[in-house]
């Protein structure tokens, strides 16, 4: 077995006995330290330490119920709205504690967008779907600005050519794949730094999935992406970093190539070779 190349390690020294080895991380956009999440009495996440590399795609993998979505929702504080959910530990974005009481959660969610498992466009027109975010955040003061934002967002989401003639049509009338790209465009429209995706392709067919994956690869040049996926192939295809969760703990994380070719933990190995999950 080959040992890890420790040239570019960014382990936070002296933290919790270094359960987690951080390998191949770039400059971290977000860092999570000692994150515990409880739903009422039940603990869903235990002492998770993870860095999210800037302008990289980080894939969160692991068996169902291991806490991937829970962790993802910690990153834009969507857990705040869940009754009885409690988060401890420290999560920083650009060195700023996002759970700081002084921080405005609305501002945070504008910087950390989210795409959900089931495409959930608003039951409004395609235009209004995209324009809603810029409107509430006061990005666009003129109709022209708004038109421009809508167009560029749709272009970046690879949807412009398909919908440019029917911007007034309801977003819910698009196909599943188009709806999901519309949701991505909606997230992009408020110009976030990070986009969180929770199994964005699980409701889509292979062709629509391929389009979304292509899109993610393009977005990577300007955005940081964290994706939860239950498809190992997808994680291998799109991500640069992979984090493997099991029973609420982060077992292993590092470069995707490394994780898939040379997992350090036998649970990781078991999962990626399909022995459980």
């Amino acid at each position, binding site marked *: 077995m080959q040992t890890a190349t420790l040239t570019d390690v960014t382990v936070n020294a002296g933290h919790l006995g270094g359960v987690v080895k951080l390998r191949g991380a770039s400059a971290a956009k977000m860092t999570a330290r000692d994150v515990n999440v409880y739903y009422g009495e039940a603990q869903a996440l235990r002492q998770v330490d993870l860095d999210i590399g800037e302008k990289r795609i980080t894939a969160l993998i692991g068996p169902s119920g291991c806490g991937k979505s829970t962790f993802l929702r910690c990153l834009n504080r969507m857990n705040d709205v869940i009754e009885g959910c409690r988060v401890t530990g420290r999560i920083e974005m650009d060195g700023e504690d996002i759970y700081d009481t002084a921080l405005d959660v*609305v501002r945070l*969610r*504008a910087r950390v*967008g*989210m795409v959900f498992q089931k495409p959930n466009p608003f*039951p409004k027109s395609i235009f209004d779907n995209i324009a*809603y975010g810029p409107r509430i955040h006061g990005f666009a003061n003129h109709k022209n600005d708004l038109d421009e934002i809508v167009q560029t967002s749709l272009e970046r989401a690879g949807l412009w050519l398909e919908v440019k003639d029917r911007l007034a049509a309801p977003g*819910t009338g698009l196909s599943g794949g188009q709806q999901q790209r519309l949701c991505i465009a909606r997230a992009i429209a408020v110009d976030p730094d990070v986009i969180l995706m929770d199994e964005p392709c699980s409701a889509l067919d292979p062709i629509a999935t391929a389009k979304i994956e292509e899109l993610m690869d393009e977005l990577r040049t300007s955005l940081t992406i964290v994706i939860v996926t239950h498809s190992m192939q997808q994680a291998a295809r799109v991500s640069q970093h992979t984090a493997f969760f099991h029973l609420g703990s982060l077992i292993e994380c590092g470069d995707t190539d490394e994780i898939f070719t040379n997992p350090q933990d036998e649970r990781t190995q078991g999962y990626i070779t399909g022995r459980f999950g």
Partner: protein
Amino acid sequence: MTDASNVIGPERRPDLSGARLSRRYAAERRFRLYGLAAVMTGAAILLVLIGTIVANGYTAFFQTEIALEIDFDPETIDPDATRDPEVLRAANYQVLIRRAMQARFPQVTDRREKRTLSRMVSSGASLKLQDMIMVDPDLIGTSRRVWVKSSDDIDSFAKGKIRRDVPDADRRVKDREIAWFDTLDSQDAIRSKFNTTFFTAGDSREPEQAGIWGAVIGSFLTLLVTLMLSFPTGVLAAVYLEEFAPKNRWTDLIEVNINNLAAVPSIVFGLLGLAVFLNFFGLPRSAPLVGGMVLALMTLPTIIIAGRAALKAVPPSVREAALGIGASHLQAVMHHVFPLAMPGMLTGTIIGMAQALGESAPLLMIGMVAFIVDVPGGFTDPATVLPVQIYLWADSPERAFVAKTSAAIMVLLAFLIVMNAMAVVLRKRFERRW
């Protein structure tokens, strides 16, 4: 284990034999038949109910009228030829009618007979003559053929509600009145006309002059107050409880109490209104304002419960989507959840309003059961409402009020059908846009 049972146990195959299948189909057919029978029974009962009401009530939409040759005698109306409206108003038009009837039947000389004769015409007929003169004083001194309403008994007789073959002693319309009626009829001096009075007048002791307009306006004013109070309060309460209230013992308690309130008998709200609104706050009796307030208390739980259900029915994905791009909680609710819940809330409100429209018990408690002739002009005028009017008429001894009662029920039903249809249209129109 599975291997073992596969080897030892008999091979299991679905039993697709004809007998078994046909038994399954027969069961399904039977079930459908039961369902159909249940629906038919319900429909039949409804049909009988509505049929009876219509059969009883349709005659109330018509009114028998008698033609009289009225001589607008200047000596009687305006002896000094002043044309002063006060004089014209105060004139004794009853005399003109009496004379006209006597002119038709000169053979009647007995004083009591004469009185019976002039009572064939409605006591409200003189008002019609007064009206004619007030509008056009030049009629004074002329002679005119005027159609006036018959009395309620003659009306009932003309409609066949009082029958000829009953012995004279048991009949409200006596033999000689029938003879006069037949004479008038043969002279084409009897006709049946659409009864506009029924739709334009307030209540009256005389059935032929009684109408439901007063009750309709009373109901309208009362419901307006109910709507103004219960809709905003109910919707705000629903939104707050569903979206913003912390989930703790207090909100649980409030929720339980709202559900209880929805089940409280309506008369209790009436008693509450009597004790609090009338006795404590000293608000006017019999007023739509107080009636509306009482009904608002009654409707509020319905609206809150329907509103919360409508908010709950909005898929959480919509809320998540809004929050996910940085909408505040209030924005997510107001921009996305609330508009989607609105049709449901409106439906609940209309159903609550329909309940309120049909409610009578609590209004009896606050005095809306009084006999009120005038059509109410405002929220504090004494008024009654449709269901109470029905109750009042159903309680009246006059034969003609039986038809009026059924006719009023028809009007109430028409309003209820319109309101419920509105609820259905709203639901259809906004159904599942997500």
